[in-house]
């Protein structure tokens, strides 16, 4: 897209190019959502098919039909109350854990970006942290920290910290070398360079990390709750109990709730990202 340059006089004014039209609501919005809605309808159809055609009636409890899941899981006030309480405790752990991960992860990444020695010293251990099977570490954490909220938060942080560090570091290091030259020529201090160049340049990658970590923090909250199995019952404990008691309607409803929590956090950060960098960031173009 080349805007016309002023003709002839060299310093001529330029015509204002029409900005791309704002995304039209209505038809194009529907066109965006429709394919997913259709696929969703197909999947529910397959679900019904499995329940009523594939499964023998005596084994139908293995996959109750969607309307039973909704009726028992969400319209039975006792079950719903239990589910909402579980959602509250799990969401609380996920969000606090995520907040800790963000602060801790970004701090570590900033330190790593400032000093190569710190980066070289910490990186292998961060990879190890990431590689630890969470199933192996959960019993250890309950030995050391009990099964309360703190222990859950630790599980949550261990799971969600790594993508934040890696993406933030990648983002901080993504500024163009020529831009660094520009700051060097003006004798910019480390702090100025970090604040005015590296952090803003890193925002797209940082948000990518946040969205990954947000999903993981929900998983972390539920896994911790599931394995500790004590204390305030979150979604993890509900899943375990429903599974043990073969309450498949509630089990599926709890899975849906857990999934919705992850989706909500993911969408929230997508929204924050659009607000923060949508105006200037264009995926796939440098500079």
């Amino acid at each position: 897209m080349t805007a016309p340059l002023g003709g002839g006089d060299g310093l001529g004014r330029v015509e204002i190019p029409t900005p791309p039209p704002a995304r039209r609501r209505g038809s194009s919005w529907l066109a965006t959502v429709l394919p997913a809605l259709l696929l969703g309808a197909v999947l529910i159809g397959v679900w019904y098919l499995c329940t009523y055609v594939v499964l023998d009636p005596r084994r139908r409890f293995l996959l109750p039909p969607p309307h039973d899941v909704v009726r028992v899981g969400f319209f039975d006030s006792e079950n719903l109350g239990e589910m909402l309480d579980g959602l509250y405790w799990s969401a609380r752990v996920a969000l606090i854990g995520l907040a800790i991960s963000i602060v801790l992860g970004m701090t570590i990444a900033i330190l790593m970006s400032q000093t190569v020695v710190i980066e070289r010293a910490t990186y292998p251990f961060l990879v190890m942290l990431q590689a630890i099977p969470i199933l192996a570490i959960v019993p250890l954490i309950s030995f050391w920290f009990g099964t309360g909220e703190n222990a859950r938060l630790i599980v949550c942080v261990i799971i969600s910290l790594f993508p934040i560090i890696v993406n933030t570091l990648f983002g901080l290091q993504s500024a163009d070398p020529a831009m660094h030259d520009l700051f060097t020529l003006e004798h910019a201090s480390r702090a100025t360079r970090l604040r005015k160049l590296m952090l803003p340049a890193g925002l797209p990658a940082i948000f990518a990390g946040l969205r990954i970590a947000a999903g993981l923090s929900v998983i972390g909250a539920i896994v911790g709750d599931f394995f500790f199995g004590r204390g305030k019952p979150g979604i993890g404990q509900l899943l375990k109990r429903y599974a043990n008691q073969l309450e498949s309607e509630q089990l599926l409803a709890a899975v849906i709730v857990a999934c919705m929590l992850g989706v909500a956090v993911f969408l929230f950060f997508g929204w924050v990202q659009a607000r923060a960098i949508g105006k200037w960031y264009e995926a796939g173009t440098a500079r």
Partner: protein
Amino acid sequence: MVGPALTFDGIGMTFPDGTRAIAEVSFSLDRREFVTIVGPSGCGKSTLLRIAAGLLEPTAGTVEIDREQLGYVFQDPTLLPWRTVRQNVELLAELRGKGRQERARLAQDAIDLVGLTGFEGHYPKSLSGGMRMRCSLARTLALRPPVFLFDEPFGAVDEITREHLNEQTLALFETEGFAALFITHSIAEAVFMSTRVIVMSPRPGRVVAEFAVPFDYPRSPELRFDPDFALLSGDISKALRGGNG
């Protein structure tokens, strides 16, 4: 009267990996002079400019230059994409700790000079390649440095845009009266812009020829089709190829 704006004295540059980029370069740039360096790629032109700006330390020789009074125009626009045109043009004044009002005034002047008036609130992503380059020019211009270093600034834009940018840069050169050291591999660009053209040899770079350009300013776009223009371009081209051995 003050001395030259910039003096290279016996500059040599060998990189730590043993690459000898510049053999020996000495020349100076007078105030209000427009000197262009042409040379094959890899002849150390950009290296020379980075040495002048203090981004690199030469392994031999000295540079005399007032680095506080220096404007550097990069090969790419290198605009900060999260800043609007105005905020980009304000950047250098901001890094030098100038106050908000002064920044705004300096930026507006520079934006007007390059013809980006009306685009102050645009982000780089909505500008064309030529407009981005002019924004980059305005950023350097904002502090009104008396010496400009141009590192092959218009290499990435199309021919027509490049000629427009050449004419705009020359117009600024005439009105602002800065000294310019300009790097390019386009002979036509060199002849059109400069008071003097310096030809460098392939790596390791050294000055192989120097041409005074006799045309008066202001130069009209038609100058490019003048027979004398073609003759001089031919001579420079010959010198360039001679350097190739």
